């Protein structure tokens, strides 16, 4: 393979990775937008999404098969179920804490994350669960670059979801209300917007997107386990920060940028794949220190 081929192949890998990051980052950014909470549990919602998708696929797999059709169906069911889980989490854990000091609600989010992780740990015994699918390994070769059909479907699905979200946020009444709530909650109340409901809708959509990513990731990598949300939660947060937290296009761009940076980062001499995570955390710290508003974020003067 020529250097160009290697880089092109990494471009494809980076796009796939970046799609996952972007879908999870969207939830972070939307939830941050409406309640200014960094939802530590979001990575674990993604993990639950993977497990629910797996459970549904195991149930219906016999009927519809475990190809992309079955996966799309289980992804859809997982999105709905986990979306409502997100609403329940918000109602039980975050809603009573909205007026509390920031430190308290952050710790609550951390506690929710631990509860989700350990529930799945107790159910699965901490083992990797094989996510058996029938996707095949076919693909097309462009020059020296091999792109599997799976990769194409994955990136395509992610793109459809993001487009749907973008349409929802910019074109519908709920989307407009959501944007309004992220600007000024009190004013929204005065204008007759049901802020509590909008927050619930935001959690529903954010969690559903994470669930979609979780199911797709399970199908793509072939296994799931209770701790899979931790690292991607961090990475997705990094992506949201790169794009500017609170900004939806920012989260999409940030996810893709981080995925690409990571994929190309493995090709830098002396860094290699075992330093990949250190590489992305360093990016996070550099962005936060030098440009905390990210690419699309608005500057914000705020302290704890």
């Amino acid at each position, binding site marked *: 393979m020529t250097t160009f081929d290697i880089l092109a192949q990494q471009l494809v890998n980076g796009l796939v990775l970046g799609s996952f990051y972007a879908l999870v980052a969207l939830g972070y950014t939307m939830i941050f937008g409406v309640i200014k909470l960094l939802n530590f549990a979001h990575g674990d919602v993604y993990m639950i999404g993977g497990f629910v998708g797996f459970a549904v696929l195991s149930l219906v797999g016999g009927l519809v098969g475990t190809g992309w059709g079955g996966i799309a169906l289980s992804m859809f069911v997982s999105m709905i179920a986990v979306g409502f889980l997100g609403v329940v989490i918000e109602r039980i854990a975050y809603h009573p804490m909205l007026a509390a000091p920031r430190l308290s609600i952050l710790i609550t989010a951390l506690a929710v994350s631990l*509860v989700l992780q350990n529930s799945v*740990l*107790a159910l699965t015994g901490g083992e990797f669960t094989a996510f058996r699918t029938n996707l095949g390994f076919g693909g097309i070769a462009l020059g020296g670059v091999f792109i599997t059909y799976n990769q194409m479907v994955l990136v395509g699905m992610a793109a459809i979801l993001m487009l749907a979200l973008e349409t929802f946020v910019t074109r519908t009444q709920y989307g407009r209300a959501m944007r309004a709530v992220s600007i000024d909650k009190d004013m929204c109340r005065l204008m007759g917007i049901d802020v509590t409901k909008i927050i619930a809708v935001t959690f529903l959509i954010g969690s559903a997107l994470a669930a979609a990513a979780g199911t797709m990731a399970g199908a793509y990598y072939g296994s799931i386990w209770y701790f899979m949300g931790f690292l991607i939660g961090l990475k997705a947060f990094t992506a949201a920060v790169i794009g500017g937290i609170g900004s939806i296009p920012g989260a999409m761009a940030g996810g893709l940028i981080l995925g690409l940076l990571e994929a190309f980062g493995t090709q830098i001499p002396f860094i290699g794949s075992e330093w990949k995570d250190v590489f992305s955390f360093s990016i996070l710290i550099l962005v936060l*220190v030098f440009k905390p508003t990210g690419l699309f974020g608005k500057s914000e003067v705020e302290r704890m």
Partner: protein
Amino acid sequence: MLPFKTAARRAEAQDNDPAPARPLAGITQLQQWFGRPATFRGAMAGIVLLLILGPFVFSQYITVIMTNALLYVVLCLGLNVVVGKAGLLDLGYAAFFAVGAYTTGILTLQFGWNFWASIPVALVAAAISGVIIGGPTLRLRSDYLAIVTLGFGEIVRFSARNLEITGAASGLSGIQQPRLFGWTIDSAVDFYYVFVVLAIGAVIASIRLSDSRIGRAWLYVRHDEDAAEAMGINRVAVKLAAYVTGAIYGAIGGIFFAVNLGAISPESFSFEQSVLILMAVILGGMGKIPGVILGAFIIVLGPELLRDLGELRLLVFAIGLLLIMLFRPSGIWPGRTQ
């Protein structure tokens, strides 16, 4: 005020305490708890006596667990300075613990240093890492700070796992037990006493710190950063001091953890470790020294008592933490009545 308070309102009320009016927070709370100072002194003497006589009463197993609990007392008091006193959420505290343990491990094993000579180096290394982590991040908002400290914690662990000098994934083993005046500290009981001394030292230092000028500055900064700054407190310097203090506590814990076990591996310093320490600080009651000590004991003894539950015990702990945040955000240790 309404007869029933929501968790949030209670937390708010707690946060609005006119705290600077009680500079001797640690001691005053203890005194209130025990009633009169004489009872307080008696209780203190009783606890110290119990700690000294412990190994004569305990089995070997309980002695080892108590040693572990005392290690966590040191670590939790250190994190308490950062989270409880200065109000900075640190999710990577295990990094300081790791810096202490690895510095001692590397110096004694790879360079043949004397254990005692490695201590000052480890402390300086921890202080420097506190500045490195704190310096660029302290101007950030609290939730960004939390995630950046988490990132730093993971960077430290990944580095320990990938570097040659730290023994990569298998870590360092065969760390020499320290000698003091011809006496080798090697048995479980010896280490128990080492940790008794460390824990008592950490408690006294914490009380003295919350009593000091910098301790009051932390309190001001936690309650109202802008007002504190207007009063002439250098916000960044004060927060940095909290980080460095916390780092030194963590490193002391790490140094003695390394020689106690004789072996360290990157997985001892994982994110779960940081969370466990944080959980102890919150369970007991952030900022309250006796509460934090209680939290440290709960975190170590609880899993031992719940051992029969197997993997469920972590879930029980997590749900407990969530319930405490929702219903008693100021921790188990009773706070002041209003």
